[in-house]
């Protein structure tokens, strides 16, 4: 479904990603792990068209994303839950969700998708008329996920879901993601390695802008190097 090959990405004159290759098949849950500044968010930015590719290609369902603008990538069925949630603070919960359905693929289905999001996160229904900025961190994360789902994406990108959230809230949100089913493929960036490996089938490890390891999440979980480096055991 998604195939990243030989991708180099720069921010200004500084190279951030080197020769990245990864693949996600339809229905899969894949995690990207790596320490701060490794380039995980930059990879998300490259996939969504926020950062241009210097070399290499990204294909989504066979179509190249190179040179497309973010608004065009969204149109194809890729939605991002960005690092730091980035909900529209001055817009209500409802309006935030409506913005998610802005792409043509989502708009005709707006009512039904919103009902589905409220089913997934009942708290959002209670807060429907509240401004996004007044929500708690966990609720904002739910809103950011809900907003992304409103465009009926086939591929959902999630960046640092658990950042700054209480473990209980994180668990609740991961459970909701599990409930999405096979029709939504998920590629997630997660700093909490244990969580990431638990909720994914496969994982890639990114260090200093390069993919250094990949494998089945269950195997990585048992790997002594990984346990030592990321789990502190």
């Amino acid at each position, binding site marked *: 479904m998604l195939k990243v090959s030989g991708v180099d990405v720069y921010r200004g004159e500084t190279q951030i990603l080197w020769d990245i290759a990864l693949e996600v098949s339809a229905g899969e849950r894949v995690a990207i792990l790596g320490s701060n500044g490794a380039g995980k968010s930059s990879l998300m930015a490259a996939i969504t068209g926020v950062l241009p590719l210097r070399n290499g290609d990204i294909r989504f369902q066979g179509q190249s994303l190179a040179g497309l603008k*973010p608004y065009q990538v969204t149109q194809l069925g890729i939605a991002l839950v960005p690092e730091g949630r980035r909900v*529209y603070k001055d817009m209500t919960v409802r309006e935030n969700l409506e*913005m998610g359905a802005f792409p*043509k693929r989502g708009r005709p289905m707006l009512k039904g998708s919103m009902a589905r999001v409220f089913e997934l996160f009942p708290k959002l229904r209670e807060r429907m008329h509240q401004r996004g900025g007044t929500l708690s961190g966990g609720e904002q994360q739910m809103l950011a996920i809900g907003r992304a789902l409103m465009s009926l994406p086939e591929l959902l990108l999630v960046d640092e879901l658990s950042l700054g959230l209480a473990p209980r809230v994180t668990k609740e949100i991961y459970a909701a993601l599990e409930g999405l089913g096979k029709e939504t493929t998920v590629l997630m960036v997660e700093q909490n390695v244990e969580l990431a490996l638990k909720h994914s089938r496969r994982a890639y490890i990114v260090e200093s802008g390069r993919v250094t390891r990949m494998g089945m999440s269950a195997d990585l979980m048992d790997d002594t190097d990984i346990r030592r480096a990321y789990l502190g055991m």
Partner: protein
Amino acid sequence: MLALSITNGLVIGIIYALTALGVSLVVGIMNVINFAHGEFYILAGYFSYLFAHTMGLDPVVAMVLSIAAVFLIGIVVEYTLIRPTYGDDLYSLILTFILSIVMQSTFLLVFGPFPNKPPNWVKGATNVFGLFLYGNQRLAALIAGAAVIALFFAMLKLTWFGRMIRATSQDREMAELNGINTRRLNMLSFGMGCALAAAAGVILSPVFPVTPSAGVPVALTAFVCVVLGGMGSMWGCVAGGLVLGLVENLGAAFVSTGYKHVFMYLILILVLLIRPSGLFGRSET
């Protein structure tokens, strides 16, 4: 005397608010300060003079046509002058400054230095609450200005275009990720900002005729409104406009006409001292 000054203040205040909304829209979406904003106001006044006076169209039709024409010109200006400057705000500042001078000189060449006045929409005067006699044209201007502002806010709140504008001014990159073609939105917003100036221009020009350089104080006041109301707040623009209109007229009536602009800056400094983010601005989060 007091009631009359307040009414005068409201008329002018609504016009300031309308002009400031255009500035605020363009700043919010594009981070561009359009120095020629006042000249678009004047241009609309001249258009409405041309359409209604010279060509003999109905004044209301002439107004609508003038606003539409200025909207289109705004779009062309964005496409040709502003678009190449994205990423460097200083360039757009300089370019729109030059544009304002070019427009003023063109007005002078075409229309001469004398005031031009589109015809009134209504005649006569009304006795307002039995307090004073007030020109119907001014009352009509007040109502029309308030109506355009109400329409603009309804558009922001109720339409997809309004949501696009609010989302983009809050988080441009996120809005783009939500499927908004922000480049195209820039163009439309710039046109719309000019159209708001134009609306103010056609509404007020029957009361205060236009001259080639009359846009300068209008734009200046609009910039002050935006800062006074709080950068990025549309309600702030309206509040700022009304405050400035009232202060200016009350000051002129009870102190002296000569200090009009002094009052404006005094209020600005006072408000910024007490609330650095303006009347409705959010303090840094």
